[in-house]
């Protein structure tokens, strides 16, 4: 019974964290272009070290 006092808040907190993360990612427009995101991850620019 004593374990429950902190285990349940932890479980709820982690769940709420996931929910908040989802709502944030939606608000910041990360689901606007799923096809594009899949391609952008492959693009590594010109692939040359920066010249100073």
């Amino acid at each position, binding site marked *: *019974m004593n374990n429950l006092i902190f285990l349940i808040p932890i479980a709820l907190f982690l769940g709420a964290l996931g929910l908040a993360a989802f709502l944030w990612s939606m608000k910041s427009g990360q689901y606007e272009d799923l096809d594009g995101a899949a391609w952008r991850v492959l693009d590594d620019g010109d692939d040359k070290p920066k010249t100073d």
Partner: protein
Amino acid sequence: MSCCAAGTESAAELEALKSEAPSPEEMWLSSRPLGEGRRQVDLIVPGVHCGACIALLEKELPKVASIDHARVNLSTRRVSVVFDDRDHPETVLTALGEKFNALGYPAHLPGGADESADPVFRDLLKALAVAGFASMNVMLLSVSVWSGAEAATRDLFHWISALIAAPALVYSGRIFFTSAWGALRHGRANMDVPISLGVILAYAISLHETITHGEHAYFDASVTLLFFLLAGRTLDHMMREKARSAVRNLVRLSPRGAMVIKEDGSREYLALDEIEPGMRLAIAPGDRIPVDGRIVSGRSDMDFAVVNGESAPQLVEAGSLTPAGTLNLTGPLVLEATRSARNSFLAEMVSMMEAAESGRAGYRRIADRASAIYAPAVHLLALGTFIGWMVVSGDWRTAMMTAVAVLIITCPCALGLAVPVVQVIAAGRLFENGIMVKDGSAMERMAATDHVIFDKTGTLTQGKPRLINSASVAPDHLAIAARIARTSRHPLSQALATHDQPATDMPDFDIVESPGDGVEAISADGDVYRLGRSAFALDGHNEGFERATDASQVILSKNGQFLDVFLFSDQLRRGAAQAVARLAALGVDAEILSGDREAPVKALSTELGVTDYVAGVRPRGKVERVKALTEAGGKPLMVGDGLNDAPALSAAHVSMAPASAADVGRMAADFVFLHDSLEAVPLAIAVSRKAGSLIRQNFALAVIYNCVAVPAAVLGHATPLIAALAMSSSSILVVLNSLRLRRKTTVESFARPVAGQSGADVVAGAGLEASA
């Protein structure tokens, strides 16, 4: 040309590739200010297909002066360009349009007016996320209660569940509550009424149980119920939104404004709403007429297909009337606006469409019809259970608990999921074949159709002429004619120009187009070639030269001497004959309603084997024909593309339009097909019918499940554990049954490789033009 494999483009996209960049004035009108002297314009670029396209556009576009940055959205095929509007925005936008063409990604402006992000979808997704979170946590707590928690722990868990469920119920449930309240206020019952009642009552009785240290609580049932139903609703919305955005991305055919010539001779580009009768407008070749007008000066050929359905262009001169939406082909025109945009021909069609809308307003969705029977039955059953237990046991608490259990067990969870899942999968099948469905109700109506009405020009035929005697004309004459024709916009010239071989060696011509007559080309050695009407090409003499009456012709002459005659005729749309045959196999009658003359319509109907046809029909006539069929108890499907078909499209039980259709028609139609082939029509009917039968199967499954579960619930055996198990298993069963539609064996899909093949050729041609 884009980097990606040819053949991935649909016919509509190929059409878009051939279109020209929007004018800087139009881009300016559709751009919106971002503040600090910056503006953003959204353009649709159908050629974007992969990561290399994104990288190229985002790297190259900002190289144009004054352009800040560009962002590609691959899912919607849109590019947002942010530019500095402080110095000469017109030159910036002109340069932008040229840059798009130079890169090989022709762009056009979005078609629809409403471009904002979809707030309803976001709300649904948020509600779904909250319901998912709540149901997961409450379910975890419930599982421990079911596995035998001691009384004190059980009470604690019930309290925590109650605290999690309450905000979730308010936030996620409001979508159902508002809809149910709206229906009740109008004295109707929809699916949301039993859902809302079940969820609220379950929560209330569980809260009462928790306060009085009771054993059973239904918090998990009430939130998982919401979760499942929201999932169904979100899917339904996603399907509609996908189709809508695809339709919005098609090339907009009506202009946003026009170049107005002021009294002092200066010119200004005004938006459509600002054009008043009496203003003088300059119309360049290739422009559409913005408002009804009368020609003041100029001479040209005009394409009136959107008005009368005839494919052959007509000659217009000073004094001719030009309805809004018609296309100016060859010569520049000055016209005087006779009516404002609000009162023009286009607006007249729209108001006729609104008047005809009753065709489908009376239709009620299958789910709503089912729930009209289902909801009262469920409520009566729950009430009966309550009264029965009151009589037998006299304990109102037991009676109430049992009644709520009945409500939860019978809650149309499976039904709420059954219809959208089937329709989303069916819409996906159609989407693969280039057919877009506006909403689920369209699919239900399509399944019931028993009569198809086809428009002729642009629907059964391609609406574009093709050279039919290329075998019998001299090859060198054809080569000369094709080269000369390249400069003209006249549809006959463009048909000739497809026979041009860029590789052949040809003297340079000095080419002058004389609108309404033809094209004159003077070669370097002084020979005068003329291509056009007989009177023009043969210099007046030999005027009675007419070879064919039912085909359009163009004559090529050299120094006034007859060289050759080219004959053209409108070609059948690909798959038209197969479509008619397959419709007959499906038991659907077909008929042709056309605004064109009798002879071509008759020839076409004989060719296709369609016995019923009516020629020379006005837009109102088409609506009346549709109404007559409906009154006779039929469920007509209208397939048409022109502006003149739009009222009939909205009057019909269900309607379908090709992607090349007029804007208004595309918006009015329930289905829009992107590929060229007309086989889309029988395919849409077949898939819709299959979906309809799966929906009925799912209803049957749900009824069987109720027959088993309800007696147990009425007798008071439905503990929260049993309720949760029964609910989830019935939902899973229904979803699995719906997934059977994905199996390719059930519906024959039509050949796509052919479309890809012809597409590749056109793309190569378009690429050459763009780079030339």
